[in-house]
């Protein structure tokens, strides 16, 4: 038995890096410290895609890595509008090869941000993002607002490590001298912990943000007695807390990005932060979901100039979420082949888009079988990043951390698989005399 310390969790955007595990017979046998229930489940492992496979007459048939990679390359090289989607539950090293492949075959490359915090990115492009690292929150924040976010379920260590319950330099006493405000449609487990819970009417976030801004700027006279299910009295109370804080932070989740208004809700949340910043220090941060969704946004940006939804069909980048994003392409039946890596549109895309995906050739690269496997035509098993493979990832506050390799594996890492596909595609193109 070996104990490994400083293990980095490859599950959610918290990327906790103080985990201790025990490894025996090349398997993680115990998670001793640091991980939440969700992270622990990830580290302990689940059933795998065992062999590479190619679908024949409706059934997946096992094959070698070489055969699967060759088949994948053939599909991609022949495609007029290929989609390369996923990238957030793998490491940046693999993402880089993905962008290179997208350029090589004139593909659209998109990542799971488009169905998660893509709207946040769009908002940042309109107004910017006054933010900070999570350690700043831990050391300084005395007002924490979770808006449309339920960390108790989705980012279980977030409050403990970084925000409400954590202890830092100016926050030695933990939650004792902090205030927690939760804004949500449901009284979630997070909401139950709050000093103030604002139960907002579904879909009215935009209006409430605008009301808060008007109040923060002092126009109490125009704001009506109730906005989005919240009384003016409660809004005024919240504004008072914001103004009186020494360091405030808004964490927002998919409760805001998924709902009516989408990115403009976030624009408004950021504008609210700016308005609060005229009184005191105020920051805002998206609760990024997958452990490296921030990372693929980073890689895609430094390589193409744009964070997601990038069309390279003309050999240069055209960026336009809403047109180039995966859901739109699928619902509009635009693409004629897809490579899905480290993500599961089968489970997380609207049914309408899965319908098209199930009709075109699909290549899946993933350690685990999932709904996407059900219609994938080529299935390539991969090593689990953070357990069987190392590499760089970006936490939700864009801090880069290197995932550790804990055990050996026979499975190829995503980066190796992607490199092989790229090589194979180049060989095909060379043969075709391009």
């Amino acid at each position: 038995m070996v104990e490994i310390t400083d293990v980095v969790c490859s599950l959610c955007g918290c990327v906790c890096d103080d985990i201790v595990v025990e490894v025996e017979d090349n398997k993680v046998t115990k998670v001793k410290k640091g991980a939440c229930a969700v992270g622990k489940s990830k580290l302990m492992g689940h059933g795998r895609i065992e062999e590479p496979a190619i679908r024949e007459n409706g059934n997946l048939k096992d094959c070698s890595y070489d055969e699967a990679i060759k088949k994948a390359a053939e599909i991609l090289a022949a495609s007029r509008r290929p989609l390369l989607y996923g990238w957030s539950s793998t490491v940046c090293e693999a993402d880089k090869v993905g962008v290179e492949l997208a350029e090589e075959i004139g593909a659209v490359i998109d990542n799971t941000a488009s169905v998660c915090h893509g709207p946040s990115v769009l908002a940042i492009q309109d107004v910017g993002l006054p933010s900070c690292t999570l350690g700043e929150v831990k050391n300084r924040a005395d007002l924490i607002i979770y808006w449309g976010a339920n960390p108790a379920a989705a980012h279980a260590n977030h409050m403990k490590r970084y925000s409400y319950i954590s202890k830092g330099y100016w926050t030695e006493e933990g939650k004792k001298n902090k205030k927690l405000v939760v804004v949500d449609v449901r009284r979630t487990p997070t909401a139950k912990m709050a000093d103030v819970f604002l139960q907002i009417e579904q879909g009215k976030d935009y209006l409430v943000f605008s009301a808060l801004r008007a109040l923060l700027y002092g126009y109490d006279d125009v704001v009506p007695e109730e906005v989005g299910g919240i009384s003016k009295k409660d809004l005024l109370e919240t504004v008072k807390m914001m103004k009186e804080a020494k360091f405030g932070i808004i964490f927002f989740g998919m409760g805001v990005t998924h709902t009516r208004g989408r990115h403009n809700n976030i624009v408004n949340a950021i504008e609210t932060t700016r308005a609060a910043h005229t009184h005191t220090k105020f920051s805002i941060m998206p609760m990024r979901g997958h452990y490296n969704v921030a990372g693929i946004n980073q890689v895609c940006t430094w390589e193409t100039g744009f964070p997601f939804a990038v069309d390279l069909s003309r050999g240069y980048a055209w960026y336009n979420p809403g047109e180039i994003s995966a859901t739109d392409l699928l619902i509009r039946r635009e693409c004629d082949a897809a490579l899905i890596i480290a993500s599961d549109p089968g489970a997380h895309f609207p049914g309408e888009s899965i319908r098209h995906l199930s009709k075109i050739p699909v290549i899946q690269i993933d350690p685990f079988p999932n709904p996407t496997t059900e219609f994938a035509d080529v299935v390539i098993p991969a090593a689990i990043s953070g357990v069987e493979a190392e590499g760089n990832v970006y936490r939700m506050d864009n801090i880069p951390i290197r995932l550790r390799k804990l055990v050996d594996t026979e499975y190829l890492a995503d980066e190796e698989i992607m490199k092989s596909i790229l090589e194979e595609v180049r060989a095909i193109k060379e043969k075709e005399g391009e």
Partner: protein
Amino acid sequence: MAEGELLIRNGVVYDPINGVKGEKKDICIRDGKVVEEVKNPKVIDAEGRVVMPGGVDIHSHIAGAKVNAGRLFRPEDGRKGVKARTKVCRSESGYSVPNTFATGYRYARMGYTFVMEAAMPPLAARHTHEEMVDIPILDNAALPLIDNNWMTMEYVKSGDMDLLAAYIAWMMKATKGYGVKVVNPGGTEAWAWAKNCDLNDEVPYFDVTPAEIVKNLAVANEKFEMPHSIHVHGNMLGHPGNYEVTTSTYDLVKGIKPYRDRPAMHATHTQFHAYGGTRWGDFESKAGAIADYINKNEHVSIDLGSIILGDTTTMTADGPMEYSLYQITGRKWTNHDVELETGSGITPFLYSGKSPVNTIQWAIGQELALLVKDPWKLALTTDHPNAGPFIGYPIIISMLMSKRRRDESAEDMHKVIFDRAEYSSIDREYDLNEIAIITRGMAAKTLGLHEHGKGHLGVGADGDVAVYDMSPEETDAGKIQKAFLNTKYTIKGGEVVVKDGEVVATPAGKTYFVTPECDDKLTDEMLVKLKDKFEHYYSVNFNNYPVQDAYVPNPYEIKAPWRS
């Protein structure tokens, strides 16, 4: 590095570090290095053309967290510079915030082969390195920010210079960094509470002043044989009337004995620090006062931070300054405070020749170059992309070389240029030797890179050469500008990477970093304090903090022994 031999024949060579001022000369390269002679070389005919060592940029923001945040939040800038991939090149995008590939190609097209990334937040150092590795062709290095760090301020307060040096050494190694960067010392920490600091203000909660931070970092830096001095972006950047803060900052290192023949401080993007007046309404150039100081003293070197007119993306670890800028423009604004270390702000900005303030800024950048007598004391920069994108360098070169060009430009600008700046009264014109100094020689020497083969063409130097498609007699400013934008040839490590302005090869560059050598006992003592910081205040574990070797696949290590 390319194997084999290359001969660059009959060029007119400007190699200021070796005292070569426009001599017709052959350059011989074997296996990537300059040699005395070659036997069976590939020949490049440079007949009558200007030949210089590969350019060295002392200060540019090309890689890392805030550069990428700039790209990410400016798709409207991204779409300005798109260019399709070719058989050799990846696709390009961006104007003021180009993607990694465009960054490498565009610098190489201008004849540059080394660029210093000027600000690396230590906690995000991996990010800087990931991008630097992705920038083709260029050799590069990065300066970690060490000045607003709690560790630094605590040692400054306690006066433990050796422990501060031990911290610098550890940080240099942990970040694979090149030298100590200072940005708005104390002010960025204050910004975490939405405040700022002037040079002699107390930093909230830390009981030290920015002046003390600067001085002590300079002292601690010189405890090692560091190739570079501390690299300082002082307090009150961009504020009218800041020139006195600037010269007071320079004064702080007077009397500190540098390890070798370089100043004890490099003061960067000086244009932003040479402001007179009391507010924007009576804003005026104080380039003359700054130049006077530089002319009379040897302990400070500067780079220009010269303005390029047009839209750009400003970005700096100076969070409060970016906030002020955003308040002026009302445009989008990103801020990113980094725990225990630093911060950053980003906002787009349009420099317009119709604006009196921007006009004076334009004048100041060039006035500095024209009024500082010794070009070895200054380097050409635009603090890319803060004062404008680096692809504007040829504009500044043509201005410095042509009084006529400057007069023409002044006519197109706001009339304040005639009464609140010295611009139109200066007759000096740079010659090509001086241009070679401010675009390669000075930077290489100030960074200590000339001892590692950069910035010159002496035997043993790297085979990095720029051949410009112009004769040394050229006086047409337009033609000069064009020649400096796209080389006839750029050669990197003996390999032709640019031919006729097109990138033809994209070898990977090297990452230069400095390893200060520090006594174990000192280090251990320092680590007690540092580990406590990690245990209680950082959000990343100590063992996951240092940049792993995997991030620097092409390393070039420079050891910096402790000075006895």
